[in-house]
């Protein structure tokens, strides 16, 4: 086993790592979306305890760094008697961290739907649920997609951190290759290319989704939008920033 591995020897490992990275990203993204909607709606509630509670959770998970959360769940939580599987730790940390950022996207997008739309729905005596579900939400979703695209790419870009909690993702496989004495430039070049392809695939899917939800509202420039490289070309300066 003292032989220096080549990239070809590592193909199987990289596929395996890719599988874990994709799984982690998908599960993390699902948890993130769920938390974004729940926290985003809660932070607009008129019940003080609900709004206050949501704000505390959001500010807490945005304000403490992702790696701290990851390591806290991995190293510190077992001392309190709760032990998660490393994969679950990764999913929970990514979901909580980016869910907190995502809730601000949900809240901001709902706020950005013109007040007249809310009023019109009320005037037509829609129930609060119908007003949200039938009138406001479909319009807010269009606004949410570009910032969510950015967040999802951020999430994907954060998944390499999980190699530090013993998960064998793409980056861990790259590290194993380096430790085995493999050519570092080659392996990191391959990793960059894979992550780039994943990020672009994500942007492509979300652009298709954006074109679809816009078409439902009778807006947008048609399906050609899907080929844009950047999420939401019309994003305002700093709109994607997640502080």
């Amino acid at each position, binding site marked *: 086993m003292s032989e220096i591995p080549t990239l070809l020897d590592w193909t199987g490992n990289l596929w395996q790592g890719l599988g874990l990275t994709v799984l982690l990203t998908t599960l993390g993204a699902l948890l993130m979306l769920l938390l974004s909607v729940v926290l985003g709606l809660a932070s607009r509630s008129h019940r003080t305890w609900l709004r206050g509670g949501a704000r505390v959770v959001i*500010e*807490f998970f*945005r*304000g*403490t*760094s*992702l*790696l*701290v*959360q990851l*390591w*806290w769940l991995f*190293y*510190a939580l077992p*001392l*309190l008697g709760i032990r998660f599987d490393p994969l679950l730790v990764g999913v929970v940390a990514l979901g909580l961290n980016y869910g907190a950022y995502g809730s601000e996207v949900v809240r901001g997008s709902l706020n950005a739907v013109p007040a007249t739309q809310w009023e019109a729905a009320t005037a037509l005596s829609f129930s609060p649920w119908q007003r949200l579900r039938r009138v406001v939400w479909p319009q807010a979703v269009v606004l949410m997609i570009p910032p969510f695209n950015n967040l999802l*790419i951020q999430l*994907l*870009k*954060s*998944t*390499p*951190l999980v190699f*530090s909690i013993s998960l064998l993702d793409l*980056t861990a496989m*790259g*590290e194993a290759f*380096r430790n085995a004495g493999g050519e*570092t*430039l080659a392996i*990191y070049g391959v*990793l*960059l290319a894979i*992550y*780039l392809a994943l*990020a*672009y695939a994500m942007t492509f899917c979300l652009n298709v989704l954006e074109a679809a939800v816009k078409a439902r509202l009778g807006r947008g420039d048609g399906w050609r939008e899907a080929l844009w*490289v950047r999420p939401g070309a019309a994003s*305002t*300066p*700093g709109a994607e*920033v*997640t*502080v």
Partner: protein
Amino acid sequence: MLWDWEYALESLPVLLTAFVQFTLVATVLGTLLAAALGLVFAIIRQLRIPVLAPLITVFIEIVRSTPLLIQLFILFYVLPGFGVTLAPLTAGVIGLGVHYACYYTDVYRAGIDAVPTAQWEAAAALSLHPRYTWFDIVLPQAMRNVLPSLGNYAIAMFKETPYLALITVTELVRSARTIGGDTLDYLEPLTLAGLIFLAASYPTALALRRLERRLQTA
């Protein structure tokens, strides 16, 4: 009660030292590098310098779409193969700075675009040298537009400094893990590390929001 106050108080000075010595230093230097490099990128793209401008555009897309951690590994593990060996902190600052410069470029572009065309035209009508047009007319106004966004990215960078832990920089979070590893009790140091981050980033974010509002109304 599992929480040990004595142990927590004991580890606090070590954590704060690591925080100031590495986390803050990396954030400040990284932000300065990103702000300067981002401005250079933005100006090159604005002037549409042939070859250079499209190259920078491609570079920015690649850097923005790939993990910071891999970029740090490249600086830290690949460059020595080419005879360039960087100290961990140096590699970290360069990694953070270049990564965020790619975000800053867009912020500057938006800020420059937001300067009214009439300002450019007035400068041209007065036949000002391009250097004065840029540095005395356009950029000061653009800076005002972009200040809140630059600040937001600085906070985002601050929260990504723990990445440096993985290229052996003993910043806050790595020190917390080391302390925990020595005593096999991770709870206090890692919790404190999180709280230190929160205590530093939350007030800064609030102050920035206030600044943003003030610049808007003025």
